[in-house]
């Protein structure tokens, strides 16, 4: 199985750094960025399998970013991350095609499991 290419998007820089390190240690290829706009630019520059996307960010928020990402890269799997659990946000995210919705703080095992699941889904959808 090839390496999962993950894009981690969160305005909290320390979070991106810490989680990025831990996911890299588990064999993922990880790039991190701190805004929805920057994430979109990166996704147009090179391919990713899974995006971990924070919902609450200044500027373009996670839901807006998700909408844009699905326009440019419909097959990339987006997992929404949120520190403030809201059913409405979760459902809106799923409606817009998010693969999953993850609550912060999440255990690293749970993050890994969701990422792997999303990657599997992408492989199947790509056929």
């Amino acid at each position, binding site marked *: 199985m090839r390496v999962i290419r993950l894009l981690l998007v969160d305005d*909290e820089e*320390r*979070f991106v750094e*810490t989680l990025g390190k831990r996911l890299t240690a588990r064999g993922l290829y990880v790039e991190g960025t701190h805004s929805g706009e920057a994430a979109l630019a990166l996704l147009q520059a090179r391919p990713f399998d899974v995006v971990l996307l924070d919902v609450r960010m200044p500027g373009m928020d996670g839901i807006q970013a998700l909408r844009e990402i699905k326009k440019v890269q419909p097959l990339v799997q987006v997992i929404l991350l949120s520190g403030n*659990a*809201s*059913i*409405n946000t*979760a*459902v809106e995210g*799923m*409606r817009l095609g998010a693969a*999953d*919705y993850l*609550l912060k*703080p999440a255990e690293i095992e749970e993050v890994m*499991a969701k990422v*792997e*699941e999303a990657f*599997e*889904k992408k*492989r*199947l959808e790509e*056929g």
Partner: protein
Amino acid sequence: MTRLLRKLFGLDQWRPVVARQDRRAALSLQYRLFKELITSNDEILELIADVEQKLQGDGLFGMTYVRSRCVNAATHAYRMIQTINKLSYRRYQELYGVFNGIRAGLEHHLDRGPHPIEAPAVYPLSEVDLRLAERVGTKSANLGELRNRAKLPVPDGFAISTDAFLALFQAGQLRDEIRAMEVGVELEDQESLAAASASIRGAILRAPLPEGLEAAILGAYLRMGERLKCTPRVSLRSSAVGEDTQTSFAGQYVSVLNVSNAEILGAYREVLAGLYTPRAIYYRAVNGILEEDVPMGVACVAMVDALASGVAASVDPGRPDSGALVINGSWGLGVGTVSGSVSPDFWEVGKGAEPRILSLRLGTKEIRVDPLPQGGVGPSPVEPALRERPCLEEGRVRELARLVMAAEEHYGAALELEWALDRLGRFQLLQCRPLRLSASRGSLRREAPEEVDGHPRLLTGAGASGGCRSGPVVVASSPEELGFFPEGGVLVARHSSPQFVKVMDRAAAVVTDVGGATGHMASLAREFGLPAVLDTQKATAVLRPGQVVTVDADHGAVYEGRVDGFLAGQAPGGIRRAIRGTPIYRVLQEAARLIVPLNLTDPRSPDFQPSSCRSLHDIARFIHEKAFEEMFRVSDQVADGEARTVRLEARLPFEVHLIDLGGGLAPSAQGGAVCAEEITSGPMRALLAGMTNPELRWWEPRGISVTGFVSVATESLFSPHHDLGQRRLGDRSYAIVADAYCNFSSRIGYHFAAVDAYCSDSLHRNYVSFRFKGGAADEERRARRCAFIAQVLSRLDFQVERQGDLVNGRLRKFGKEILLDRLDQVGRLIIATRQLDMRMGPGTSVDWHASAFLSGNYLFDPAIRPEGAGSEG
């Protein structure tokens, strides 16, 4: 889990390799959607079981827990709705509306939260009683109750509300600052915890108080001074919301004594900072409890410059039936008595209209603690003459006893009270809480005999948490194994790990090789009310997994087997059920009404439709049923020799409909029905062989003479006339098969049994997963049946997880032959278990039933003795 199954399974193997590519691709897409739907259904069932368990009072949780469960359940339900609509070309759009109704209800409960925030407020104690407990916290509420409603002496003072805490917490950057510091903590690292604790406490001590709060506190203080006609010194104590939240899980509770007017705001912050001791941070992180879940009020009362102080209990905790109350006390403030650092005087007083002093044991009282002129308190030696004098005269003891009895009568419950005798010779009550009587037998340090009633002593160690319980040994050598920790197991580990907190509400007792009575493990064990024997040096070497032992923490010993004499009168202790009745529990309870109840039980009922769905469980149930229908519809559409749906001809108590995805049925099979011989799916054949095992004789009447436990209801259901042609309405099961795969699912009313298996020559892909939930019987019978299933599965080498009435067994990476054998057993289990809840009433033995089943006694005839087991009962 299903994620894993899918991974092992490698769905891409269904990719078309032959012609009619688009048709098979269609089927493959449908199959992927189906698996997705099954995954979400499984996750919802797990969430429901977990919530049900929490509602029974098992374990602690915070608002984060409630939120995450609601959001996850809603997300999965929504995903199921999306998927079923993809699967059916949007046949079930109506579900979106139904879902939105439920989701609005859930949002409403979540928004309100356990503590609707009000303006921060400060209440004079004269306006406080228990009815205000949610605003001011338990400690302040009890003081007000004693003062205003029981009319007992309590110092003047005021209560700072929990809303003030929330306002402080939410104002400015404090919350974000604290979160950031907590995120960086390495929980396993004591230094990291200590550093985080120090910096968070620093941030709180520096944080400005919200405008208005400062004025309110100082105003309340000034008015108190006017009433007392002085500039009083005060003491501040934490006052959290919730009956039993005064345990350390919510924080280390702080009192700041002898505070002057200039320091009062600082002291308030200091009390709040007490929520951030290293252990409290650790505990909340592991349990997912946020500070907002345990908002802190503060009780501020006039400092009593005490001649003597102490603690009184309205019932003797050591001898609850003696009819005596007990008082201890020493010179000066009560700090030393409460913390245990001073040896106090001790009175036993017979309760009655005229209290009688039954005994007095003089303490040594070398040290006293008194208020210092500059503020704070300090210790000093007690004059030798005073050491030998009781700190209370006999008349005073009787006077205090009357106060204690009056308080007990007012509450109608056993109480523990802190008391002080002021310089004017008046008693003041400073704190009041319910007295928790433990069933523990006396001192922690007594000699453990080498043998008890023929049970040899296996280990000795430090008894770190009292009590005595018995159970099978579970050696936790890695955190991953904890997922399968059985209810009532004895946790045996080399040393403590933060992971253990997750199983402590299920464990019976704890034994470790290393560790002491002051460590994490010991304090956690005490919080969960678990007997713990630590520092045994060799527990992991001596104890064997599955071996039944008795852990006697009162004597610091572990014995072989079940020492019944020790276990008598041992109550399940601790805080397990303490969470009931707290505000957060009520939020979960309200939300659970929209998640847990299952109203749609009969697929043939006219009510089995979207508009009847009243909970997320209903939605999941409905969609799960329809998913099979849709799969059959799809496969009928593409049926041209590739995929087929057929009815199975077999003697079973339910009808089975099959879809073949490829290689699961013999090419010869034609038409609407197949017989067992035409099934070529390995796992399905094995399962079916088990279900149709002639020894099961499920069609035979179960007479009262045979079992002695069968209720009238079962009698009518399983009467001799009830045969092949007369199945219960709705008794329909589905199987989706391929050469090496089967998914079998059977739902009968409240029951749900599902098998998912892949058996090939490729060892690492192989698995069998068996899931069982429910049953209409009462909780006790259901629990016993689940315990029975869990035990059978685990004796068949399955890894078993139990959550409430959900049993989840899985077997991985075994050879094909073994898996096929286990599937045969699982088939038998599905049939033999159907009526079992009816007979598994109180007094029936789970062990006996498991042994009976495994030795082929499928009718559970008590006259037949299974090998290696005793008689039933």
